[in-house]
């Protein structure tokens, strides 16, 4: 249907632009890696402590890198007033939201696919067997981050000091996602199984569903030339 088609075209456009300009993905990779380096200098690590601190550090690195990515999310539209071109067209505002959400989700997942193994290597953490379940949690958490992140990236599009304002608004609202993802990943690393972490996973999925719906409906009022 029309919404799906429009979302796909807009996503294609963003992917094409990203491949050509390489603004976001590469910088996100290197920024995340840099954060991991800084964490090592900041905390004294033994192997046991590394396992304890891994979820928190990994997720924080994701969130900070993701936030930087969010400030760039509508960059292509801001140049040449392309946002006006899109708003002029009959394109459904919801399609614009979904395409930007999907695009940023993809960027963050790619970044995490790179960061998680890197963490394991840098900190000598033997969690390779658990990566799939850790990845599941990270994915559901990243969805939650992108859902509200995309919405508020548009909200702060024309605000002053938007690079500071966006995290100021986003981080308190993200607390359920941050807590659930980190606690869930920690349980997986400690017990080796998904069982105990399920309540946290359910919370994350609930968060994702509620806010994806809410943001999708609200977006049309928020995006404006």
């Amino acid at each position: 249907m029309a919404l799906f088609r429009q979302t796909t075209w807009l996503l294609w456009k963003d992917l094409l632009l990203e491949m050509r300009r390489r603004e976001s993905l590469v910088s996100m990779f290197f920024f995340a890696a840099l954060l991991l380096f800084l964490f090592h200098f900041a905390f004294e690590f033994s192997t046991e402590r590394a396992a304890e601190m891994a979820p928190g550090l990994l997720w924080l690195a994701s969130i900070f890198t993701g936030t930087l990515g969010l400030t760039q999310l509508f960059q292509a539209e801001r140049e040449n007033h392309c946002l006006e071109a899109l708003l002029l067209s009959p394109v459904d505002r919801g399609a614009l939201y979904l395409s930007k959400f999907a695009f940023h989700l993809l960027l963050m997942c790619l970044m995490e696919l790179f960061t998680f193994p890197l963490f394991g290597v840098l900190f000598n953490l033997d969690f390779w067997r658990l990566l799939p379940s850790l990845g599941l949690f990270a994915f559901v958490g990243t969805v939650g981050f992108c859902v509200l992140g995309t919405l508020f990236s548009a909200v702060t599009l024309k605000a002053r000091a938007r690079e500071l304002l966006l995290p100021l608004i986003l981080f308190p609202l993200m607390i359920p996602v941050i807590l659930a993802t980190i606690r869930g990943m920690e349980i997986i690393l400690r017990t080796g199984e998904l069982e105990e972490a399920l309540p946290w996973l359910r919370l994350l999925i609930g968060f994702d569903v509620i806010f994806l719906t809410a943001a999708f409906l609200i977006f049309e009022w928020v995006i404006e030339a």
Partner: protein
Amino acid sequence: MRVVTRRLSKAYGFLWAVKDASLELHSGERVALFGPNGAGKTTLLKLLSALLSPSSGEIEIDGARLLPGSSGLRSAIGLLSPEGYLYESLTARENLRLFISLYARRREAREVAEALDQVKLSHWAEEYVSSLSTGMKYRLALAKWLLLEPKLLLLDEPYAVLDGAGVDLLEDYLERLCRGGGIVVMATHHVPAALSRCSRAIILDQGRIIFDEPRQEPWESFQRAFAAFLPRGR
């Protein structure tokens, strides 16, 4: 097609950009919009294209109210602006394909090639828009509207950007559009060029319409009446 505005107004903070603009436009009309800088011409164009929502007043197209959500009406409105409205890192052809699909039009590759040919950009089809000059970008935007076939076309300062050949292309297209029942509204500072080609002249000053007359004979007296109302910059 009939476009009606009733007491259309837009305020920014404590100032009115457009105040109480009431117009009625009909198929085939070519309207020239004049006024000094800051008179509200661009704001009026943006209101007519639903890019801005009015502070008060309303717009009706063929009896249906133009609201931010009216995607059906928006698909028949085009805006040609010197601001570009094209993705710099996409090629000319990719830009056209993108907008064709967003407007839900079916155009074959042949038609796209023809449009590029008409605006003399065939050689630049696979070039990134960032490597085009301003005039070429405007021509590409023109190609876009050739393919999208709007019924209401709004233009902001076209003569400032186009060279002689480009102007001819544009005039050609505008004539065809009007003959086909479309409406053209052009905001410009180039008084002689626009006045001689329009079917109706409107002057805006400080947000208000102070002159709104269809072009009539004798030409000299019309010109005189027009000149009397045209404010000489402030």
